[in-house]
């Protein structure tokens, strides 16, 4: 995944305020959001409930008008509408006309998206096969399970062969098998050359499919970056447990290796970045210390996420004080 790809989504200083009613103070839901999405990547917008994920996505989809700031998709300002034929969208919880059959449902959206009449039957059949609903094409959506509806929703988002697909919580409310099916579909979209933008609060899914993420908390982007960043060695740490640590060695570890030391009496536990573990071990052995164990600590996205959220909350509490 290269960061050199073309920017397909660009959001700058986006602000959205909702007025709950006349005379009441406006509530700022998006507070100066800036981020970008590159071509052919799977981008995850991650945040706790109420952080502004859905508002952000609705703004990009033109369902909500921004109060300030700009956003563009495929180089077009989101206020325009002509570029929407290159954009697919799956809303958070898919509410569809449940009296339509799978085929009628896709035909409806194919007509709206201007898919030529001659191409429609084949396109619909292909998509149904693609999302694994070939057997249910003639059944009404009312009889679909949650997972089937979600897959039908994805088929609807792809009916006009868009370049970029926006998915709002595509895996929420699904069982593990359902989630795996959606995950596989998203990965296939990338291999077909599409760009995928998804909102989610399920971090394991992000870890498994996203190339890049942005963490949004209380209407602000707290982090934006490559997913490898989290999992890469300079972010990953290891716990090294040592015995016979001299005071001299301890200060060396803290100063030279910037290790976090925890004194357990006989033993000392040092947490260091994984990539300097071998250097550290060499230094320890040279200083006559005994190495009892080396355990890699997997710092998950979840912990970064939680840290970010906690930081924000702390900061706000302190401001409040």
């Amino acid at each position, binding site marked *: 995944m290269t960061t050199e790809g073309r920017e397909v989504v660009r959001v700058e200083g986006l602000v959205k305020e*909702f007025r709950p009613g006349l005379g009441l103070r406006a509530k700022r839901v998006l507070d100066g959001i800036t981020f970008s999405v590159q071509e052919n990547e799977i981008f995850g917008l991650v945040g706790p409930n109420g952080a502004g994920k859905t*508002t952000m996505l*609705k703004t990009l*989809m*033109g*369902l*909500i*008008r921004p109060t300030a700031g700009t956003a563009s998709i495929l180089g077009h300002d989101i206020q325009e*509408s*002509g570029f*929407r*034929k290159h*954009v697919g*969208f*799956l*809303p*958070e*919880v*898919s*509410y*569809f*006309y449940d*009296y*339509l059959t799978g085929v009628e449902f896709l035909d*409806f*959206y194919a*007509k*709206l*998206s*201007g898919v030529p009449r001659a191409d429609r039957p084949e396109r619909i059949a292909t998509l149904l096969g693609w999302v694994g609903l070939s057997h249910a094409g003639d059944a009404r959506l009312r009889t679909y399970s949650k997972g089937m509806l979600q897959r039908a*929703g994805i088929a*609807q*988002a792809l009916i*006009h062969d868009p370049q970029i697909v926006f998915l709002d919580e595509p895996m929420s409310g699904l069982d593990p098998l359902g989630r795996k099916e959606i995950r596989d579909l998203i990965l296939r979209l990338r291999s077909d050359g599409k760009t995928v933008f998804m909102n989610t609060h399920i971090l394991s899914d992000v870890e498994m499919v996203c190339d890049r993420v942005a963490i949004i908390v209380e209407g602000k982007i707290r982090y934006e970056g490559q997913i490898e960043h989290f999992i890469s060695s300079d972010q990953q740490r290891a716990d090294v447990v040592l015995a016979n640590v001299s005071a001299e060695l301890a200060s060396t570890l803290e100063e030279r290796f910037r290790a976090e030391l925890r004194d357990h009496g006989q033993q000392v536990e040092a947490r260091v970045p994984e990539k300097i573990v071998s250097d550290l071990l060499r230094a320890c052995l040279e200083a006559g210390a005994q190495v009892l164990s080396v355990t890699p600590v997997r710092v998950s996205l979840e912990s970064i996420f939680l840290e970010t959220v906690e930081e924000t909350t702390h900061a706000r509490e302190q401001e409040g004080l």
Partner: protein
Amino acid sequence: MFGRIATIANNTVREAVRNKVLYALVFFAVLLIGVGVLLSTLSYVEQERIIQDVGLSAIRLFSALISIFLGVGLIHKEVDRRTIYTIVTKSVARWEFLIGKYLGLVATVWMQVIVMSVAFLAVSYLTGAPIHAQHFYALLLTAGEVAMLVAIATFFSAFTTPMLASFFTGGFYVVGHLTRDLKQLGSQSDVESVKTAANVLYRLLPDLESFNLTVEALHGLPVTPAEVWFPLLYGLAYISVVLLLGSVVFHFKDFR
């Protein structure tokens, strides 16, 4: 554009005809058209007129009820159930959606008007009541009136809840039949501002009474072409303005 509007209109009809209340209202309308025969026996004279009066009034009343009942939730329901999300995020402009929904509902209500008209004509035929051109003009203008009502209901549905929209649309329906009295009232007033206000309201509010040819139909009174085509033309123009306004309001709406 036309294809998209037609697709939305078509789907609106499909959804509307699934509404059971629609059938209940049509059933009561047809029932009332039939009850007219019973009511007419209370009078020993002009029974055919009473049958047709009750019949035409039933068609007008129930088609108005259907229009308001289905119209006030037309847009709001799509927003509330979020079915609109996947539609306006396709290459469908919001005004296209609004017009498509409007046309779909008008088509639905017109189908009901046709069903009720057939019942009316059947009862007239069976009771030997006369049927002349004025009856068809009256039915045609009823179709025009409901198209106006649906437009007004669609307009309110674009930005408010069904409850409020039904109050507003119902209010427009009532006032729309009184604008002529309003004008009369204004012209009798000595206060200049009252006069002006009454005149402004008369021109602003829909003159639904101009769509009422019931009396002409009942008595076979002569009807000039202007009494048929001008209301229809007026309706078309009024509907265009209302839907344009609705589209503008709808365009700036946030779907939270």
